[in-house]
């Protein structure tokens, strides 16, 4: 009787452990990045931006966007499908305030095969910018931008169907400053 109890208990324990592991694995497959490992950099930074907006907050914000304003209408359309917007940005007074080790926890998450790096721009002078996308059935369900400049570290994580073209064109609208970059030429009728 005693051995039977032990046997059943072991079975149950193993099954529960597997279940817990499966749950943890599936949780790791969500397109949201865990950025808490960077929080300690806030103490060194001269300027910190920490944005964390979940789906509920996005829907709340959408309520006060004016449909009459074409810019607001455009932004509303862009964000209405999003499930979360998470940004961490640190601006430092001098170089070398953060190391690659600080970014390791984020990079490990982006090494997941579900994420694919579409752009990697490296420069000793300007730093690196990497853009990652997460797809599901040919649809973008997650975007991650990792910008590691000499005096600035920015990580953007958008969850949901992201329209990259619209997002790129957003600069210069709604109080969003423009960098003076030439926009991509619109396609002519013949090209279409």
């Amino acid at each position: 009787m005693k051995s039977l109890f032990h046997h059943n208990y072991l079975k149950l324990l193993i099954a529960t452990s597997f279940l817990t592991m499966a749950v943890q694995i599936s949780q790791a497959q969500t397109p949201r990045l865990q950025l808490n490992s960077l929080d300690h950099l806030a103490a060194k930074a001269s300027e910190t931006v920490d944005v964390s907006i979940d789906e509920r907050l996005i829907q709340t914000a959408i309520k006060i966007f004016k449909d009459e304003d074409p810019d607001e209408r455009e932004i509303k359309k862009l964000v209405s499908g999003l499930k979360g917007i998470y940004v961490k940005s640190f601006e430092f007074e001098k170089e070398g305030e953060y190391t690659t080790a600080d970014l390791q926890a984020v990079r490990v998450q982006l090494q997941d095969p579900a994420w694919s790096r579409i752009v990697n721009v490296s420069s000793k002078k300007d730093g690196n910018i990497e853009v990652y996308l997460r797809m599901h059935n040919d649809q973008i369900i997650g975007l991650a931008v990792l910008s590691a400049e000499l005096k600035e570290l920015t990580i953007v994580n958008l969850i949901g169907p992201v329209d990259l073209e619209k997002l790129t064109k957003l600069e210069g609208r709604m109080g969003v400053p423009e960098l003076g970059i030439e926009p991509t030429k619109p396609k002519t009728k013949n090209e279409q």
Partner: protein
Amino acid sequence: MSDDYLWDKRGEPDPDVQRLEQILGTLRYQEKPLEFPEQIAPARSINPVFLLAIAATLLIALVAAGLWLMVRKNQMPRNQLAIAPAAHSTPKPEKEAIAPNKPKTAEPVAANNPETQRRPHFAKAKIPAKPALSPMEQQEAFAAKQQLLLALRLASEKLNEVQRRTVAPTTPMKNQHKVG
């Protein structure tokens, strides 16, 4: 000799009856307090290790269930994501699919029809008005909007930066002179 002694101990005692009384008297009922022998007391006590094991299993199961619920909640929007883009792209083709041979004059006719003219008005009345936000909600919405714009600004800025830096190497080509 009467039997009175046998019945109610009156009269002359009978020696045989007295002898029997002595013999059987030892078996008479004697009142005494109830005492359980020690052997009857609960013999088996539950092993605390088993109790701990059961408690640990229940705890693990609870944690697992909680995690599962959390993951399920997280994955629900993802399922909706697959549907959302389809909803954006389908309306036009659907209309065409439903009435591919629809004459082009149908629209003006419908526009002139007073019955159909009334429809949008009717439909407008059916659309529920936007619920008015309480001051607290307005404040929250305003703060969320500011954060949202800030996040979008950063995202857009970084994407433009990528675009600029990826396009930049090709620009010197413009300054090159044609050979020949």
